[in-house]
């Protein structure tokens, strides 16, 4: 069983790393729509898939946050990716597998997943 003592050890280890974190302006932001429409469509699992993939790959230049209704309920779960160069990418109808793909191809290799991005006239 996981113990509180382990948590204390994690804290010691983390405290020695936290200071090295760079400021938020230079990070990629992943924003998941988590209003009722998003949650009903599966946003919780998409958000957790992002967090897990990012942790697995040790990407400390990415932060995952959530927001309310992005305003296109039928395309939920919706995920916006903001890159430090000022661009915004909107991914639609996301699921866990798609989240892993966005992390690998877009966040790691800087190749946006064209097939998952919002299309004109959708």
């Amino acid at each position, binding site marked *: 069983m996981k113990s509180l003592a382990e948590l204390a050890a994690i804290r010691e280890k983390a405290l020695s790393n936290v200071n090295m974190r760079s400021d938020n302006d230079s990070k990629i932001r992943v924003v998941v729509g988590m209003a009722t429409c998003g949650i009903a469509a599966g946003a919780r*699992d998409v958000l957790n898939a992002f967090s897990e993939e990012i942790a697995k790959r040790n990407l400390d230049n990415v932060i995952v946050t959530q927001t309310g209704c992005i305003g296109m309920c039928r395309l939920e779960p919706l995920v916006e990716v903001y890159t430090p160069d000022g661009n915004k990418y909107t991914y639609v109808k996301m699921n866990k597998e798609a989240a892993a793909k966005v992390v690998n191809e877009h966040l790691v290799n800087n190749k946006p997943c064209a097939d998952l991005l919002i299309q004109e006239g959708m």
Partner: protein
Amino acid sequence: MKELSLHILDLVENSVKAGAKLIEITVTEKISDNIISFEIKDNGCGMDKEFLENVVNPFTTTRTTRKVGLGIPLTKLACEQAGGSFHIESTPGEGTYLKAAFMYDHIDRQPLGDIKSTVLTLITMREATDFIYTHTVNDKDFKLDTRELKEILGGVPFNEPDVRNWLNEYLGENIESLYN
């Protein structure tokens, strides 16, 4: 909504938006009483009587000026479809309490679903809010208070990958042991 745990996530987001500093989430499964319920209690801004009436029954109102919310009516509907009941009370300036109860064996009762993910999501994404999570299954229970964890963490956030991992496993093991 396919899972009770998704209703919980959605309703707790209301509490966060209402500025709650402490949110108590209680899940109770009592098979001998044929009941599963969840309760959410917050110390957010609360709602006055008239507003609350409107929120619970948005489609019975004659008002058309305000866009209606979906979260609370969806949960109420899920209760009613599963032989249960929905109760909500609120005091402006003090907070809100709601309880959603369902017949355990009702054919249209949604499964609790991935409650671990709901709790993990809330704790890691809402660092500034404290949560008390209590889950009872028959005669076993599990309780987690984020204030106690924060004391151990001394400022290291819950979304730090190692901490999040620990929490994921801690929640998973403890919730699972309720069913053994």
